[in-house]
């Protein structure tokens, strides 16, 4: 699975995710990615793209849950993303997210997640584990 989230200089957020699914999945199985709110979500507060085991991500409505925790619990992006991933079954989920304020979160409960981020301040990060 691959994904990207961005907030532009006008504070507008967007999210995109694309995948081939899981190896040896049943033909016809629809994963998390095309389900808006589970694999991909964006609103005026943040944008989120997820990766991992789609069934877990759909049960948790992961991407929308991050946005909801920011909107209704007034959590920072890092707090919302971290708490959502932490509550899911270990080894199932990773996500990248940005907020309309320009914050970045990249959380996962797997061994690793191929990820990269940058922002207007000069921050640049590429990581795996």
């Amino acid at each position: 699975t691959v994904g990207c989230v961005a907030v532009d200089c006008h504070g507008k957020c967007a999210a995109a995710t694309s995948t081939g699914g899981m190896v040896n999945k049943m033909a016809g199985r629809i994963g998390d990615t095309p389900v808006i709110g589970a694999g991909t979500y964006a609103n005026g507060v943040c944008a989120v793209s997820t990766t991992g085991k789609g069934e877990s991500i759909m049960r948790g409505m992961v991407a929308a849950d991050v946005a909801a925790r920011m909107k209704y619990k007034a959590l920072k992006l890092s707090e919302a993303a971290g708490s959502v991933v932490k509550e899911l079954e270990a080894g199932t989920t990773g996500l990248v997210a940005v907020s309309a304020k320009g914050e970045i979160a990249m959380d996962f409960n797997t061994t690793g997640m191929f990820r990269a981020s940058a922002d207007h301040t000069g921050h640049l990060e590429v990581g795996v584990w």
Partner: protein
Amino acid sequence: MGWALALHGGAGDIKRSERTEAVESVLLECLSLGVAELESGRCALDVVELVVRALENNEMFNAGKGSVLTAEGTVEMEASIMDGATGDCGAVSGLTTVVNPISLARLVMEKTPHILLAFDGAEAFARQQGVETADPGYFVTERNIQRLRQTKETQTVQIDYSVPSEAGE
């Protein structure tokens, strides 16, 4: 307001290897692509589509070219996109020939009254819109053929990066 960008290339049980470094290098290229577009003032929606297209076109990742195989040895690709400013969104599932599923998802968002098109209907929409397509063989890599064989032997289903069960422990 300041811009920000983050991307991923999948999660799982990732082991250190030459491949890992190659993937990191591609991620940095894709990141640089997105950064340049944001710095030039392009909107977030355009940038996320552009970056995901670049990732789909690289066979190192499980999306587009390089998608993993179903139990029947076929590819079934999925993608979705959402504009936070408007709440508009689009998605596709069960694609077998579309080179860049993320762009078809955006067309669903912008050209139809719907959110999700799947399988034959999504393929027909792709033809109608004239998006780039390829024979199913374009998407299949030797590595993914081997992964399917290993996974069938162990009767498992794997996410992007899984430890082969035939390790011999």
